């Protein structure tokens, strides 16, 4: 019995060490966050959808800006298919003053975001997901009412120039889910801005 407990605690320690966030196949973590329109939005609100495109993004990051229009287009394209976008701003606005709730509201209004833009005020959500940069995508799939992570990473392979993109990782992943397949690749890496925290 003692041995079992020890093994178990060692195992959980290993999981904590490795578990720097969610990977494809993991259960998504539910969240309830404040939206720029004054309401609160939870992942569970989307239980009637096939999936959710969770985008960790922010106001000032050049990569987030470069992808802003593409994220809007993705929502317009995939929300009718059952995969809407939910954007979450994970930055501490004391470190990144461009990311205050008021500035998020302004950005959302100015760009006419057709999706919620949520503030991860306590920064617990991005940490639970393991996001490291903006923009960072978590494509979630609704499996009988439970969301599972299906794809983690970049939107496509050219941040600078949407017209020069050769591989649309996220769209390919959604396409795979719609066809009943597992996304391949299920993870991609990209350069992006670090998420701003007070240490």
């Amino acid at each position, binding site marked *: 019995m003692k041995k079992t407990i020890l093994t178990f605690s060692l195992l959980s320690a290993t999981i904590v060490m490795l578990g720097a966030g969610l990977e494809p196949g993991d259960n998504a973590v539910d969240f309830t966050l404040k939206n720029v329109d004054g309401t609160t939005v939870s992942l569970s609100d989307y239980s009637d959808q096939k999936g959710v495109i969770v985008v960790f993004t922010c106001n000032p*990051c*050049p990569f987030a800006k470069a992808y802003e229009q593409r994220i809007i287009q993705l929502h317009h394209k995939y929300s009718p298919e059952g995969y809407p976008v939910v954007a979450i701003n994970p930055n501490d606005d004391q470190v990144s003053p461009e990311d205050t709730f008021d500035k998020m509201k302004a950005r959302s209004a100015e760009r006419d975001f057709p999706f919620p833009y949520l503030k991860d005020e306590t920064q617990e959500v991005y940490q639970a997901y393991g996001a*490291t*940069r903006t923009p960072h995508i978590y494509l979630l799939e609704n499996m009988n009412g439970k969301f599972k992570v299906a794809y983690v*990473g*970049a939107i496509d*392979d*050219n*941040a*600078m*120039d949407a017209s*020069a993109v*050769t*591989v649309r*990782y996220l769209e390919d992943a959604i396409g795979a889910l719609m066809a009943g397949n597992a996304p391949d*690749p299920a993870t*991609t*890496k*990209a*350069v*992006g*801005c*670090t*998420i701003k925290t007070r240490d």
Partner: protein
Amino acid sequence: MFAEKTGRIKQISTGGVLQAMRRYAFMFMLAVIFTVPAAGQKVTEIGREELLSLTDRSGDTTYVINFWATWCSPCVKEIGYFEDLHNEQASSGVRVILVSLDFPNQIESRVIPFLEEKNITAPVMLMTDLRYNEWIDRVDPGWSGAIPATLIYNNDHRVFLEKELTREELYEQVNLIRN
């Protein structure tokens, strides 16, 4: 009479201005000749294979490869430490290379003005391959792609640090790799 005087004064002053302009032009040329090589920072554009060979060289040198960008505030904060390391240890076998991940279309508009403003003399390269997923893992499998990130290595040791470094941390890490 009045007009004539004015004319003469004008002539004299014009001559003076011309002379002064010539003098200034000469000084300006001297200034150009002597300041351009010092301040005119060169940015070498590199692709995937060049970057990967940069992160995998052999020899006695210790390489310090810092991934940065002008838009990355923690990178901007630490870049002076890398410049100092370059100035202090380049002659003793430490080669600092600053690899910019700014977009290639911003070299003239952002990167070079930034380097000049900060008086950076360490070599600067700019990664033109934007297909990040094809090479981030090959630089280091533990790298998420966030910057600042710094690779320090030589024949015997290698460390990859995905975080902002203090001056002390940078020098300490370089010492650890060298000893």
